[in-house]
């Protein structure tokens, strides 16, 4: 699109379209907002706002059982909420894809974000989720594509950690 600002979320959206991912659930994060907006505008994609990230695991599995592919978008703070729910795609060998915007790592302002930020890759790996990570905008499309194909081709769980260095650390001002 001429005049459109190049944004790496467009590359994720393109992967969704190419792989026929038609359901996107999320507990919102600013890092995902441009992608959520793209999905909201697309009549072929159902966007489901959750009250807790773990429900996106069950939703995604139910949708897959019914023949639809989906992705769960969340911030790293939500990963811990999903631990036991991740047993469901694991034991059923249902493909599960999540994209995680990272906090608590690169130039973080809020100390409360650090514990789960540090724990995020460990928690995912502890639950047998294949973890991909991207630090550069140029790699987002290929990394999400690889993670999605890993999930849907091998019936496994995959996560892409979108690094805070790439998203940009939010600085807070008092007052």
């Amino acid at each position, binding site marked *: 699109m001429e005049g459109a600002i190049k944004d790496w979320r467009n590359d994720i959206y393109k992967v969704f379209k190419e792989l026929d991912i038609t359901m996107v659930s999320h507990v919102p994060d600013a890092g995902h907002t441009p992608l959520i907006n793209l999905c909201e505008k697309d009549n072929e994609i159902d966007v489901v706002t*959750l009250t807790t990230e773990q429900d996106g695991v069950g939703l995604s*599995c139910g*949708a897959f059982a019914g023949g639809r592919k989906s992705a769960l978008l969340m911030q790293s703070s939500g990963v811990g909420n999903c631990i036991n729910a991740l047993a469901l795609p694991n034991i059923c060998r249902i493909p599960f894809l999540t994209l995680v915007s990272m906090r608590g790592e690169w130039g973080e302002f809020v100390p409360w974000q650090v514990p789960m930020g540090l724990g995020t890759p460990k928690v995912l790996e502890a639950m047998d989720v294949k973890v991909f990570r991207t630090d550069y905008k140029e790699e987002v499309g290929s990394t999400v594509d690889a993670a999605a194909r890993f999930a849907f081709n091998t019936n496994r769980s995959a996560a892409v950690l979108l690094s805070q260095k790439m998203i940009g650390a939010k600085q807070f001002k008092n007052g």
Partner: protein
Amino acid sequence: MIERRPFVQKILKNRQSNLRVVSGLGTSTWDLMSGGDDKANFGFIGAMGQAIPFALGLAMAQPDLRILLFTGDGDTLMSLGSIATVANHPVTNLTIVVMDNESYVETGSQPTATAGKTDIEIVAKGSGISNSYTIKNEKDYDRLIKTIYEEEGPSLVVAKCQAKATPLVFPHSFDGSVSINRFMSTLKS
């Protein structure tokens, strides 16, 4: 109070071909399996709290089928927020039946919140599921059947039932991948 197992079995015995049934972990799954092995059923044996979101995803993906979820008060209480998600992403083909025995029977009958002040019907109504009601008697069977097959969902029915332990009835397989693939073989993608 409803005697849950015969009640569930009666619903299953008269099932129509467009019905797919999901159950939450524990007694709800043993109830479902007690109606006989059927590929059109999928029972959770773990992942507590995930049955409602799973049923929502399934109902969204299969709008031409009627989706019925049997689950317990314990499973429902673990993910009360999922009721709000169901209400705000409405699916017309989903009925959630909460078999509410007001206790965690499988672990020694400790009381749940519904034994105290909590009313899941009111939670559902307050969350935005207007078609929500409580049944306490087998005589409400016909009303429930109408909800399952004919009414515009999403619906949530609280079935107050006896808190007594019933024999465990195991599914065809405890391997989730076997169960889900059998279930998926009954669905058109």
